[in-house]
């Protein structure tokens, strides 16, 4: 209850400070600060004459505010937004604006992203506050603001437009921004801030323009893993490698035998030869690698999870082999398996999936069961784990018992040392989440 009230106050402070920042120009802010200073020193009118400065500054700011009512703007706009961006990578897109009113100068354009309701438990989990002693579990305004920025999804720079031409065809502005989290980034619209005559107060005009794009996880170079897995029989061939079915890879034509399914009859050959000829299929054998992503936070922080997703995305990107399939397996609300490679699906789709994957509240056994069912068709396995506890070690042991080559990437917070890890398998990589690029590069 108290934390709810606190967060509400934080939101109010945030809203007020945002209002001030968006409604006053640099000179406006300067005069506002000096207004308070002159008021503080001017309380005693006998001691200084700063009360004279106070009245003049106050009048200027009041008139600036009143002037802003004279500003009228009629525009239409279109945002050219690419489909994908990557977390942490500075990117840009364009907005085309058609001004139907008079010309304005020194205007500022800034985007408005979707805001989300934040709860104290979200902040606690994100910053791992619950891991700290009770007296340090304080949600400060700074933490709240950081989490708010994170939820919003991107840091978008304000664009200064020197001139918005009068009734001109179109003006184009380039907006630079840096996504700070994975997932869908939702744009509500943008504001155009036009300064008043004195250049102190800005009228903020909202242009609604809803749009969204997808932010993909960060990816780092990883050398291809040399896991010597045998080719496995893939029931149904490539086309249905990822689904249930009975089809096979085409081999040759032969005479019809009793029991052959009618849909395998080649009707053209039947017309040509006058007898039933069927298509013969051969079962396929190829390499199929599974990528196992640990989505169970347990005592790990969200930052660790983000790093695990990044590692998974990096492996997906760099472990491409034209003749192999890659299955991404993880547990969200239920166990999921997404397959790509050999023309089945494209890599961006796997990246899209990884962009939206969230920590699971399910039990680890769900993933264990899913992977054990999948094991017979897997040539090799890559596990991205966030801890090295007993149940994870047991799972890995099962791979060894089934004689399947595998590699383990263990993401940690910098507290572990490779020499201290017990029961580590042959291909075991310790990845420090603060040093992802270097640690993955060293694999």
């Amino acid at each position: 209850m108290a934390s709810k009230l606190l967060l509400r106050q934080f939101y109010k402070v945030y809203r007020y400070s945002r209002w001030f920042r968006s409604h006053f120009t640099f000179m406006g802010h300067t005069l506002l600060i000096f207004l308070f200073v002159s008021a503080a020193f001017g309380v005693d009118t006998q001691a200084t004459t700063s009360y004279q400065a106070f009245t003049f500054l106050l009048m200027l700011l009041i008139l600036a505010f009143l002037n802003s009512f004279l500003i009228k703007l009629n525009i239409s706009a279109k945002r050219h937004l690419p489909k994908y961006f990557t977390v942490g990578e500075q990117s840009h897109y364009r907005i085309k604006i058609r001004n139907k009113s008079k010309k304005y100068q020194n205007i500022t354009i800034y985007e408005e992203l979707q805001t989300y309701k934040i709860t104290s438990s979200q902040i606690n989990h994100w910053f791992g506050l619950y891991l700290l002693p009770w007296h340090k579990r304080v949600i400060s305004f700074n933490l709240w603001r950081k989490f708010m920025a994170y939820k919003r999804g991107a840091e978008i720079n304000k664009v200064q437009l020197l001139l918005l031409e009068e009734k001109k065809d179109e003006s184009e502005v380039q907006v630079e921004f840096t996504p700070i989290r994975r997932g869908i980034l939702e744009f509500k619209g943008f504001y155009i801030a036009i300064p008043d005559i004195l250049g102190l107060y800005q009228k903020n005009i909202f242009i609604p323009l809803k749009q969204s794009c997808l932010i993909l996880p960060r990816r780092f170079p990883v050398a291809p893993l040399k896991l010597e897995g045998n080719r496995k029989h893939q029931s149904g061939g490539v086309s249905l490698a990822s689904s249930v079915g009975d089809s096979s890879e085409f081999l040759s034509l032969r005479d019809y035998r009793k029991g052959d399914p009618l849909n395998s009859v080649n009707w053209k050959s039947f017309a040509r030869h006058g007898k039933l000829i069927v298509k013969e299929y051969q079962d396929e054998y190829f390499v199929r690698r599974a990528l196992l992503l640990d989505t169970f936070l347990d005592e790990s922080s969200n930052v660790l999870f983000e790093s695990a997703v990044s590692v998974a995305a990096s492996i997906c990107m760099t472990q491409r082999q034209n003749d192999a399939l890659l299955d991404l397996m993880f547990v969200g609300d239920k166990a999921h398996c997404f397959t790509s490679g050999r023309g089945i699906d494209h890599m961006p789709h796997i990246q899209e999936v990884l962009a939206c994957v969230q920590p699971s509240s399910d039990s680890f056994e769900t993933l264990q069961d899913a992977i054990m069912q999948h094991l017979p068709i897997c040539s090799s396995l890559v596990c991205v784990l966030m801890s090295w506890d007993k149940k994870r070690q047991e799972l890995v042991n099962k791979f060894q018992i089934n004689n399947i080559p595998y590699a383990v990437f263990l993401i940690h917070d910098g507290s572990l040392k490779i020499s201290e890890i017990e029961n580590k398998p042959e291909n075991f990589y310790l990845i420090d989440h603060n040093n992802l690029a270097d640690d993955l590069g060293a694999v």
Partner: protein
Amino acid sequence: MNSRRGTLLLSIIIWSGFTQIWFFGIVLFALIAINHKVQWRWNIKTKQFYRITDFCIVLILIILSYGYVFNTVVNPIFTLLKLAPLWLAPILIAQLYSIRTLLPIGTLLYSMRKASSNEKQDIDFTLPFSIAALLSCASVNLQSPIFFITLCVILSYILWLERPGHVKNIMFLLIVSIATLFGHFSHNGLKQLSSYVQEIAIEWLTGSETNPFKTYTSIGQVGELKLSDKIVFRVKSDRPLLLHQASYNLYFNKEWHASETTFSPYIQQKISNKTKVKKIEIYQDFSSDIILALPDGPTIIKDLAPAQLSQSKMGAVKAVNLPSWAHYSITYTDIRLSEESKFDLKVPKQHLDWLNQVSKKLKLKQKSPVQIMKSIKAYFQSQYFYTLYTPKQVDADQALIKFMLKRKAGHCEYFAIASVFLLRYSGIPARLVNGFSVQEYDASSDLYIVRARHSHAWATAKVDDTWQALDATPSQWLQIEEQDSHIFQPISDWFSKLYFHFNQWRLSSNSDNKIFIFIGLILFSLYLLRLVDKNKQLATNNLTKIENMPFCTLLGEDSEYFIIDSFYRSEKQEELKLRQNNETLLNWVQNLDDPQLKEIIKLHNKLRFDPEGLTQEQRIALRERVTIWLDKKSKKGRGDNDKPI
């Protein structure tokens, strides 16, 4: 930028002119004026800018500590305003003489130091500095239109420089003129309002100040009358006593007034050697002009410089231009002499009934003045009770009548006024006195403590040509007041004592000691700043910050080719054509006719864009080729330089 520099220089001249601080003004002027002529610049990093702000805070602390420790000025806060350009100068100089040319916003706003990168922006500090310099001219306190006119002209010019492009000049002039006009009228109004509010606030809100000409009694007011436990001053005296502030002789319209309202300069009285004098010492801090609380018959008031004292005929002593804290002594005769006035015997008609009754009861008509005084005091002490509570709000006259005949309980004002009327009814000139009762002895400091709640009222009667105090309030009033003291009183007393000892030391210790303490204070402030900084660092280290998360690295970002790229950009050699923004590396290198570079770029492209990347051997080859290429270029560069001209 030139016009901004011009404004800056102009504001510094104005500031120097107003404050007469010419030396620093000239130095700052010269530093700004030669800025664009001098080529060298410091490479100041963001954190170093922050340290400069910290240094400015230290400067502020030095100015304040110096002002308070050495007691050089009445109010060091106004000195701070006066010297604003001095303590802001390091920030301005850092901006002007840095490569960056602008100031990171975190330098001025501490909260922005941890803001996200898109919120952080660089600002130009020249105009805010100009406005600060103009505002600091206000500390000179020239109560003439010159400051207002200067401020309006310069500030309007600054706004004109910064106005948006679409603004018409005529509109701008119109708006600024309106602001000036309204500003002028409102600052005059504000001054009057401020004086009025100050007067009201002193009388009604604080309750600790005394109007020597008029007093509003709390008689008849509903609820509990309770003054604060705040320590107002400390007194060194050999006995408890009453300190007089003001006396009132005229009761009119339910208010007490002083018939003599003029003040004349206070003259220290010369006394003969035979006269027996006593002495008290008072330790007091002052926030504004006050009426001094003095014992009867003050002759010499010492150690209150630079205060100016003035005195009314009715014995009130007003002090203006007081220091922030003083330890002053008063020599007194304990005999109050003052001329009697025609109002000193007047009794309001509405009170004659109860006066007649009480007078008969006490048989006052048959007694001498001294006996009358004793009888009145004994009557109130034995028959009446002290209380701060009044159950029902009534008219002041009605309340007094009810107090005398029915309720027989009230606070000091009831007793004092009733005594004054009884004395007057008996033919003795009498007045109402406001002041303090000095009773609470603090053995640890050997001083009497006087709190706001010790504010007291009593009667004074002229007997044998001297005014003698008659305090008829039952003696339990001090205990009742003390019982109601606030739960946090010991804490506030402790702080007050600390402040008292600090001030005592400040005024008494020698200058060598002060210098050591002054240096100690500065070092301690620096230590605190460092400690705060360190604690914050520790606190943030405990949490995993979003900013610390590594950003996306591109494939081949560590390619050695980028050394060549930076070489091209840093070496502005004409034959080395810079690549256009949209030009691919291969297209660019073809025009350069450099087969070695072409090979390097091929390897670089493979590293950057081929999913297979480079083999170990190819990677080594790329590194070696880049080294060879760079060696060759640098040798060529040196060879060109060695050529005879």
